[in-house]
């Protein structure tokens, strides 16, 4: 299937791999749930601000800052699951054609693409890591002293966590295609 990484590994994959995939997926889903809850909290926060401002003459300080930090956190908490669920956009035209004519070539393409992406995400991780360290060491914050301030390091940390989770899913994706290639199978049924 071109569209989804979630059709589940073919039964022929070795047991240790399935177990590993299960563990990785568990962590991915946990991050996903955290992001989902964050969306709900953002909704409540904005509504409390609107109600507070209009009916109690007391808006909540720092809502724009909290919301803009949350969206970054939400995206990086969920990106690994979005990949796992096949939600990252790709065109299927050539892939589908290759899959019909040469299913093994399709597997090779998937392996190359996933490993290339993994290397790229590693670069992103490596370059984001100092940004987290700086935010932590210097106590960088968003907002205004005297009104509202919030530290930025948690968001920078979530970016790192999201990168690692995505990286692991990319490697698992490549590994599952490689195992299938070795076993002489085509792409997933």
């Amino acid at each position: 299937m071109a569209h989804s990484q979630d059709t589940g590994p073919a039964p022929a994959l070795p047991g240790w791999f399935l177990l590993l995939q299960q563990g990785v997926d568990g962590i991915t889903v946990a991050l996903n749930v955290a992001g989902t809850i964050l969306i709900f909290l953002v909704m409540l926060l904005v509504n409390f601000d609107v109600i507070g401002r209009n009916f109690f003459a007391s808006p909540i300080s720092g809502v724009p800052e909290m919301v803009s930090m949350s969206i970054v956190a939400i995206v990086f908490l969920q990106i690994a699951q979005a990949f796992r669920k096949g939600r990252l956009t790709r065109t299927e035209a050539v892939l589908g054609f290759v899959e019909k004519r040469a299913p093994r070539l399709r597997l090779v393409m998937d392996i190359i693409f996933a490993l290339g992406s993994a290397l790229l995400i590693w670069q992103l991780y490596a370059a984001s890591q100092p940004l987290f360290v700086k935010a932590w060491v210097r106590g960088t914050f968003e907002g205004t002293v005297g009104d509202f301030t919030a530290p930025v390091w948690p968001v920078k940390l979530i970016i790192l966590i999201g990168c690692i989770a995505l990286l692991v899913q990319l490697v698992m994706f490549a590994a599952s295609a490689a195992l299938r290639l070795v076993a002489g199978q085509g792409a997933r049924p």
Partner: protein
Amino acid sequence: PVRADDMTVTIVAGHPPVFRWVKHASQTFIPAVNAALEGTGHSITWSEQYGGSLAKVGEELEAVEEGLAEIGLVSSLFDPAKLAPQNVTYFTPFVISDSTVVSEWMDKLQSSNADMKAAWEANGLEYLGGAIGIDDYLLMTNFPVNSIADLEGRKIGAPGPAVNWLKGTGAVGVSGNLTTYYNEIKTGVYDGVIVFASAALPGKLHEVAPYITKVGFGAQYAGGFAANKDWFDGLDPAVQQALRDAAAADRVAYHADLDASVAKFLGIMTSQGATVTEVDDAFRQQWASGMDNVARVWADKLDASGVNGSAVLKDYMDTMRAAGATPVRNWDQE
């Protein structure tokens, strides 16, 4: 020093060139550098990246620090954590309304005040000068303001640090954004905003908030030119001097332009139906004394984090008093 015959220099600003300080980067700073380098054997090919094409507002500092750009118009206003001492003006309202004076002295303080200097260096930057002064902030409302009591329960949009200025007035300060002020006053989300004249006219804010009250919040310092320190340190001293001189020339030209526009803009808004009122000393005194001492809160917080905020506050206030300002409230002496 590195021998550089021709080098490419990327200059970055988060705001687009319609903002006066960006326009002058392009029309004053760069030509001044080029002119100074003529005949020195050095020349610069400029890659001008404004308006968010390379870095958004508030991202300029990191872009220069990381080396993606060599020079940036770094807005300390939008980096209140990393350039904390530079934001002293926003925590000391009612000190001075002349942006030219504020800028000239803030530029000097960037090298004479140890904590201000250290803030740039901690971020891997070399401050070049070219302070971006912001003209006297105004209160613009859709209702007349004759006394502070008129503000009771009114929702006033203000840029981040200026929300503090509204505390103690009875008004509800809402942290807002210049780009949406017009719409939000029009629909009634805000009853007014705190804004400066050189932004109010282009945004046509006087159409929806025609009561302009000169409360005397004062002029502000919002940032200046800074270069990547590693890069700057490797430059020929002649080039370094050319950059500093150009930044100084830029500050003068920008503020002359700013002063001329402010008077003109207030006139245009009046002719288009706005009412400009200057409050009396009693009003100003009442407002200032009703506020919390945000400068103290700010300085204490800096002190606790290892930056000598109290010293910065005192240094700034002393400098302004020496320059002839008569602060409505001496924030540092309470």
